[in-house]
């Protein structure tokens, strides 16, 4: 017989009563205008905003992750110039608000009316007008991606540190070079530590993209605000946007689960617990769960 836990039932009852009263007050309150929410859920402007949000999140995270790996490896390099450059980058981008960075990138053409690509202090090959190169989209992507790079750098660094020195030594004794060791031995193992906070960052990024509405990039929140700006149905459209953000973050959560499982290979002896087993297994006693582990 499992241990009786009357406290659990009492706590559950209290929570259920409170939850039910909150739900009732929301559903029954006509000011929420659920009809309007339903009407706009699949509105073409909103759907366009959803796609733009996904797109921007994906690009910003891609830039952030690549940059984060590079910055982390630089930060841990024995070369003092590389490591201080990385430190300075992280210091700067973590230390200023992302909203300021967004507006800054949007206005970068004021600082650099002409942008040249070429050899520093030497000839340049590509010339562009600052205003036409830095569009709203490019500014949004750069601002979010470069900012994310600073945070990802610290996450990647934590992952690299978590891999024991013995791994590096074993690989070095086999004649592998520093970058090869990093790529084949350290980073794959660091992934276990890097992935959960990266999932967190992705979920955070899905929501942070809403800040670029300030420079007029047409993502989800911008589209919603355009509609309520014209119709004054502010609350229902905020609910529409929120529901969509919840859907997107839920998808990100499921994706994270599967990616983490992939990189957990070789680190657990027991059969893996699937999501389904975890939910169906919730009623099992603690002793059984420990034994199953």
């Amino acid at each position: 017989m499992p241990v009786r836990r009357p406290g659990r039932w009492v706590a559950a009852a209290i929570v259920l009563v409170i939850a039910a009263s909150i739900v009732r007050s929301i559903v029954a309150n006509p000011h929420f205008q659920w009809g309007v929410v339903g009407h706009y859920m699949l509105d073409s402007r909103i759907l366009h905003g959803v796609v733009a949000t996904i797109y921007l999140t994906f690009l910003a995270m891609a830039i952030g992750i690549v940059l984060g790996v590079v910055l982390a490896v630089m930060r841990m390099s024995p070369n003092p110039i590389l490591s201080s450059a990385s430190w300075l980058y992280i210091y700067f981008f973590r230390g200023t608000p992302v909203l300021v960075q967004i507006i800054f990138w949007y206005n970068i053409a004021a600082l650099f009316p002409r942008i040249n690509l070429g050899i520093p202090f030497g000839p340049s090959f590509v010339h562009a007008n600052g205003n036409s190169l830095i569009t709203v989209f490019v500014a949004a992507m750069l601002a979010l991606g470069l900012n994310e790079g600073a945070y990802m750098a610290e996450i990647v660094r934590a992952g690299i540190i978590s891999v024991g020195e013995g791994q590096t030594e074993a690989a070095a004794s086999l004649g592998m070079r520093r970058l090869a060791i990093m790529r084949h031995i350290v980073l794959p193992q660091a992934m276990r530590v890097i992935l959960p906070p990266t999932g967190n960052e992705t979920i955070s990024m899905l929501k942070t993209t809403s800040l670029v509405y300030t420079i007029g990039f047409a993502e989800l929140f911008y589209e919603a605000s355009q509609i309520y700006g014209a119709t004054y149905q502010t609350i229902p459209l905020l609910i529409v946007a929120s529901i969509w953000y919840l859907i997107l973050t839920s998808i990100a959560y499921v994706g994270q689960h599967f990616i983490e499982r992939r990189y957990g290979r070789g680190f657990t002896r027991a059969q893996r617990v699937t999501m389904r087993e975890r939910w169906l297994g919730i009623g099992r006693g603690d002793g059984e769960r420990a034994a199953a582990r």
Partner: protein
Amino acid sequence: MVKAEGVHKRFGRLEVLRGIDLEVGRGEVMCLLGPSGSGKSTFLRCINHLERINSGRLWVDGELVGYREAGGKLHELHENEIARKRAEIGMVFQSFNLFPHMTALENVTLAPIKVLGVGRDEARRRARELLARVGLSDKVDSYPVALSGGQQQRVAIARALAMRPKLMLFDEPTSALDPELVGEVLDVMRGLAHDGMTMIVVTHEIGFAREVADTVVFMDAGVVVEAGAPAQVLGRPRNERTRAFLEKVL
């Protein structure tokens, strides 16, 4: 194959090696004994330049380790050259250090493919051979976490052998093992010695040293106290410190 002359190594102010002179011939097995902290592991790690020496000279196969000499001065080699030399020296660690995210087979094939440029199929074929030689044909696709300590250490030996090293270094290879698993690892090492591999083994297994070693070296406090044939060093130790140590471990 290995020659050391006046090798010194300091960690900060602590002098771990205080002038080591040793020589190991091709195909010979040398066992390093001594209390912990005597510097034997550090010396072993100097041989493939995992630690850099502060003074003295250390040669492997006639070439200086980690340095080149020019105008009477030592210059440290470039990282890539150090890596190339390390590839010729196999090392087995006390804590196995298998790559946990790879199967036994992948552990063994990684360096031949990435460092020597051996083709994937050829590397796999040879890895299977080596894993069979250490008695692990049935564990080819297992991850290290699913292997016992003794099995992990045997994979680690196969991994080192896959590079066709001319010298094998063993850093207390059985110290982290349960007593009943020590034998299987020593058997593999015995086989290697029998096949003529040059080996330097830091160990506390006196029986193994007596049976397999050509030379037994007793170290204490960063110096070689006594070196010679096993029968002499282990059977009739001349030095008081050797005698005291052997009394404790036997």
